[in-house]
């Protein structure tokens, strides 16, 4: 994997940093990395609408800001609605000649709690109404900002502070809510999954989402060493294993057509992913087997959907 970075990285990635260094994210934060890469792909001609959460807290302690482009934070669950208003406002002002047409993009950023739990209604509304915006869910699989509480995006078996593993519980007892599928069900033009371990893929998808006319949704798995209890230097590795085990497959759905972003001839065993993370350390072999079976089944479904989709999209 390092070879890929060495060959492609420096020459291709822009040096511009709309999301600047110096923010207060924890070391090894996968989410800050996701935002940094996404921001590079977004460029300067955009307005960021950020939900309450880690990325808001680390980027905007007054009087500092990590954003070189216009940025607004208001509340937790309303990011998609604020973005809707910004997009509609820009459109109206341009139409009425009150602002020049400069094709300013509106990009919403929110965590998994802000997206799959408390912000789901606002997101659904924005996607259904067809606003021309990009919504990026930065999924670190729990409420990390408040101290690792479970969300509906927390995976089965993970121990969090509100789904602790104990004698009577194996931790999170529900399967991760499939947000990309929910986005797809809104019949929007572009849905994708991404992970900063595959940085070029992530940036390419963000760039593509920006080009799409209408709503685009990108779900980015962002490793959180604090919440996942993994080594800070393993962020890229853990993200890469999430993809290679099929736990978090990378794909795009363009106008309803599924396309896998990577060809994995054989999935790595989920155990290789789980064992790097303290949140899964209590799992027995039997439970790991249940997870493995579920991953196999879900991945097979995805492969089937991709094979049924027409290659042209």
């Amino acid at each position, binding site marked *: 994997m390092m070879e890929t970075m060495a060959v492609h990285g420096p020459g291709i990635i822009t040096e511009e940093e709309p999301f600047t260094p110096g923010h207060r994210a924890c070391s090894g934060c996968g989410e800050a990395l996701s935002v940094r890469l996404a921001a590079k792909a977004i460029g300067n001609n955009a*307005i960021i609408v950020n939900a309450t959460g880690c990325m808001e807290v680390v980027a905007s302690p007054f009087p500092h800001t990590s954003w*070189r482009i216009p940025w607004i934070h*208001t509340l937790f669950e*309303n990011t998609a*609605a604020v973005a809707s*208003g910004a997009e*509609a406002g820009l459109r109206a002002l341009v139409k009425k000649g009150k602002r020049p047409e400069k094709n300013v993009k509106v990009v919403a950023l929110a965590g998994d709690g802000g997206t799959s739990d408390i912000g789901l209604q*606002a997101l659904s*509304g924005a996607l259904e109404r067809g606003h021309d915006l990009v919504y990026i869910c930065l999924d670190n699989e729990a409420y990390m900002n408040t101290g690792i509480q479970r969300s509906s995006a927390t995976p089965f078996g993970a121990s969090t502070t509100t789904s602790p593993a104990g004698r009577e519980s194996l931790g999170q007892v529900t399967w991760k809510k499939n947000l990309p599928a929910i986005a797809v069900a809104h019949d929007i033009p572009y849905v994708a999954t991404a992970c900063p371990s595959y940085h070029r893929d992530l940036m390419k998808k963000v760039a593509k989402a920006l080009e799409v006319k209408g709503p685009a949704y990108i779900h980015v798995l962002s490793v959180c060493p604090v919440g996942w209890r993994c080594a800070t230097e393993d962020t890229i590795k853990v993200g890469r294993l999430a993809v290679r085990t099929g736990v978090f497959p990378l794909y795009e759905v363009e106008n309803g057509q599924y396309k896998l972003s990577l060809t994995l001839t054989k999935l790595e065993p989920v155990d290789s992913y789980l064992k790097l993370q303290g949140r899964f350390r209590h799992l027995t072999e039997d439970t790991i087997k249940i997870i493995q079976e579920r991953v196999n089944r879900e991945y097979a479904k995805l492969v089937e959907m991709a094979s049924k989709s027409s290659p042209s999209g």
Partner: protein
Amino acid sequence: MAKRVGLEVSVAVGDAAKLADVDVVAAYPITPQTHIVEHLAELVANGELRAAYIPVESEHSAMSACLGASAVGARTFTATASQGLELMHEVLYVASALRLPIVMAVVNRALSAPISIWCDHSDAMAVRDSGWIQMFVENGQEAVDNVICAFRIGEDRRVLLPVMIHLDGFSLSHVIEPIILPEQSEVARFLPPYDPPLPLDPEKPVTVGAFAPPFIYTEVKWAQEMTLEGAKEVILECWREFANTFGRHYSPVESYRTEGAKVLLMTMGSLSETAMVAVDKMRDEGKEVGLIKLRLWRPFPFAELRQAVRDAEVLIVLDRALSFGGPGGPVCSEVKAALYREARRPEVVGFVGGLGGRDISMADFEEMVNQGIKLAEAGSEREFEIFGVRE
């Protein structure tokens, strides 16, 4: 010159937003606000209003979309009522703190439970600390005029605050009244274009809604308070200018037949019109009764109120909301607080009534005055009386 026409008040409120040439309307339907937003949707659909209409999926999103629209520099309008206003609650605080001059018509309706679609002021009172300018209108003309004024006041660089125009559900919103709709050209002269100081714009990036550590939060809130208090001067200036242009006068506290009145009634909203007729009758009968109408609720017009009631012996305040377990009606409680340090002040008697659409008739106002005088003389152990309740 604009003509006087018969219009449903809700429709006229929509027309007022159109006359203000709003850029964005984001709204969610709720009784009795619906006719306002339906009319606006129709105006946009017919090309009579050039605006983006966002049919959001909740009031929380309605106000949130208003935040986004206003933050990019769009003139933004919405309307709601009751539960809708409550669902917006946390967003209201953000609108005022981020200094976004959104204008909202609130068609006053009781709060659940039990569910009631009819009017009282419990919705308005529940948001009195949200940092918005709030005014109560008593008829359709006032509603139209003050929706237009609301944009001019809110968007003023000395203010930059959101404004709520409160009109009573059904008893005002759904009645047809003779209303003068100003000409578009007149409104355009009166209301300058919205020129936000710091819109979200890639040409000049700003960070809006940063998180405030303890060293700055108090200062932010104090600045907000100073601005809202200071907004009163701008409101007065706007109303003076409005009177010069359109010939209709408004003031924060209005006195009706208060000359030599020993007893004053105090009302807010559409019941003021009934109260005026009741005062006329009592005056005809030789009773020294007058009426105080409170139009401006936030910022609270302390000086004007003190001045208006200083010569009375009894002040009878009617609240259409109840602060449970507290001092009774919020209006009466604030009036009492405003008069506390006055050397000369009337005896204040509080009634809570007209809840959930219960009508208050002329006869009721007369009864309230009679009871109020007795209570003022005899005193009461209770902080307030609930009017017309069947126990």
